[in-house]
């Protein structure tokens, strides 16, 4: 067992500052690290009294008992002229300095502060003005082999005016207990187009808390697709700030649970600029005693005339012990809205569809495999990565082959 005192030491300001100097980080980053370390110790753990944490009980989680450890990170992808995809500290220093922490502020919460203090091997993707990455940038964060450690993935995406990029963030770990606390910041300039695929392949004892937040300028477009199959607990917060006029975003997520897996999705569609459009679709299929939680806010600010927003959360219960909670919220501050819809469903599979498939010779498990794959299709079908849909379907089938249905 790890020594709690020695591990907690790693989170103190002095050790964080020392580690930053040892890594040869620039002065501004050293200072940011020190501030983040102070915030980590000063801020309380989130409690169920906070609405986004209502259904995810952190009692018993002791952040400072997990020693921070770098994961093996690879970045594949060829940047266009003047662009960059690789280690944050090895990229264009002025881009990192200007944007790191500009969307997700270090002092927002204990986990985010811990990430800001502890991340190693962060990733920067920089798309220069008018340029496009021809192939997706694939970032793999592999924590296999780590036990009872904490990893702190950090990704910064800066797409300048009319820049285009697709980023795949793939996370893996082994079967040992692991804590993952990730922060992804996206800055999309005017008419920039960014696609982000979060491909969670965590091991069965990993608890993941990840924040993704994007700031969109005029006519910028962001598409986020999240696929959650692994992990013991996954809490993913995806927030889009539609600041510029005409900005658009789509957030889609699918989760497939079994045993005691717990998925918690939080989304924010923050319409700030006029004529902005957003869509959220979060779907979970739950076997065993797994659980899904959704808390989504659509906010239409005073200046967001002509906003168009839709928010949907659908939960398919594949067993009698599975459970889903849905808490969609609308905050509309202008009367001039084209559409602001939301809907949430929780229920078992359509018995007629099940009988239809069984009448074609598929046994109940096979029928459910097909139905769940079909249920996910609206999300999977639009994923920005060739061949990923088939791969995912195989993973869905494989997981349901042994799931408690």
């Amino acid at each position, binding site marked *: 067992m790890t020594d709690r005192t020695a591990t907690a030491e790693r989170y103190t300001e002095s050790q964080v500052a020392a580690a930053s100097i040892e890594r040869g980080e620039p002065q501004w980053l050293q200072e940011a690290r020190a501030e983040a370390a102070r915030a980590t110790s000063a801020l309380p753990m989130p409690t169920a009294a906070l609405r986004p944490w209502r259904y995810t009980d952190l009692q018993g989680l002791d952040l400072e008992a997990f020693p921070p450890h770098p994961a093996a990170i690879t970045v594949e992808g060829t940047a266009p002229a003047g662009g960059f995809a690789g280690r944050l500290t090895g990229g264009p220093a002025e881009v990192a300095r200007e944007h790191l922490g500009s969307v997700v502020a270090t002092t927002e919460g204990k986990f985010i502060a811990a990430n800001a203090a502890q991340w190693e091997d962060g990733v920067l993707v920089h798309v220069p003005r008018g340029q496009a990455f021809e192939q997706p940038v694939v970032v793999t964060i592999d924590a296999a082999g780590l036990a009872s450690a904490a990893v702190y993935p950090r990704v910064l995406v800066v797409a300048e005016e009319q820049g285009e990029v697709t980023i795949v963030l793939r996370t893996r770990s082994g079967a040992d207990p692991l804590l993952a606390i990730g922060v992804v910041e996206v800055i999309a300039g005017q008419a920039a187009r960014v696609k982000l695929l979060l491909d969670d392949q965590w091991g069965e004892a990993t608890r993941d808390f990840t924040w993704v937040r994007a700031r969109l300028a005029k006519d910028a477009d962001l598409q986020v697709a999240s696929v959650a199959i692994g992990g013991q607990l996954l809490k993913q917060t995806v927030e889009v700030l539609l600041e510029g006029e005409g900005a658009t975003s789509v957030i889609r997520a699918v989760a497939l649970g079994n045993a005691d897996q717990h998925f918690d999705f939080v989304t924010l569609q923050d319409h700030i600029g006029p004529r902005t459009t957003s869509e959220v679709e979060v779907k979970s299929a739950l076997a065993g005693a797994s659980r899904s939680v959704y808390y989504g806010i659509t906010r239409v600010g005073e200046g967001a005339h002509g906003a168009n927003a839709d928010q949907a959360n659908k939960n398919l219960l594949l067993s009698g012990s599975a459970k889903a909670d849905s808490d969609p919220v609308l905050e509309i501050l202008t009367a001039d809205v084209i559409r602001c819809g939301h809907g949430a469903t929780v229920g078992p599979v359509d018995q007629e569809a099940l009988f239809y498939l069984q009448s074609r010779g598929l046994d109940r498990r096979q029928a459910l495999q097909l139905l769940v*794959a079909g249920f996910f299709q609206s999300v999977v*079908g639009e994923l920005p990565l060739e061949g990923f849909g088939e791969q995912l379907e195989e993973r869905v089938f494989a997981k349901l082959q042994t799931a408690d249905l």
Partner: protein
Amino acid sequence: MSEPILEVRGLQVSIADKPEIHIVKGVDLTVGRGEVHALMGPNGSGKSTLASTIAGSPSYSVDAGQILFKGEDVTEWSADKRARNGLFLSFQYPTPIPGVTMVNLLRAALQARRGQEVPAREFLVELRSTLGQLKMDESFARRYVNDGFSGGEKKRAEILQLGMLKPDLAILDETDSGLDVDALRTVAEGVNALRTAEMGILLITHYERILNYIQPDFVHVLVNGRIVRSGDASLAKQIETTGYDPILQELGLSREKEEAAAR
């Protein structure tokens, strides 16, 4: 008489959730290989319930009697086991399954039916050949099962499945309902194209119309859960001309009386 595929003996059926509601009240019916049996009857006579029960729908429960399929008592079998053994039900209202393509369904169903992996190449060859036989476009197979299909497309999708799965017994439940004349002809031609000397067909219909295209060997009339008349194709012609009322009167039956008896 040819070898029987389906033998229904003294079958009585009620709704699973409402056991006090008896719908099929003692049906005997035998369908042999290569035979086409038409089961006709007024609305609410129990035709679709009988079809669904033979296919193994969990919505109904068998209170008495037996269903024998290829000589085996399948009364307690699950729907999927019956299907794998060669029983096919073409639904009156095929269920939309968004996100699942016809191709994926057909391949999974074919593998289940054969009890083994069907290689992609082999599957595609069979699919193309069946689509061609039914004069259907390949793009049809890439659509989601019954999702956004017109009435005619839904029925054609059922016939496509029938063609791929090559069952021993095909139950066509009101395959003619909701179709205009052209769609009806297309679907009926499809069924005819797939007919073999091995397959039995139980064709359930309210109207005699489809029987102009698919010639029945036997016609049965179901009224209030019982087969009250059986005969050859001329029985269907008779119903076309006179409707069901003369049969009811001849038997001293009226719908009101039957309903009162059920209560």
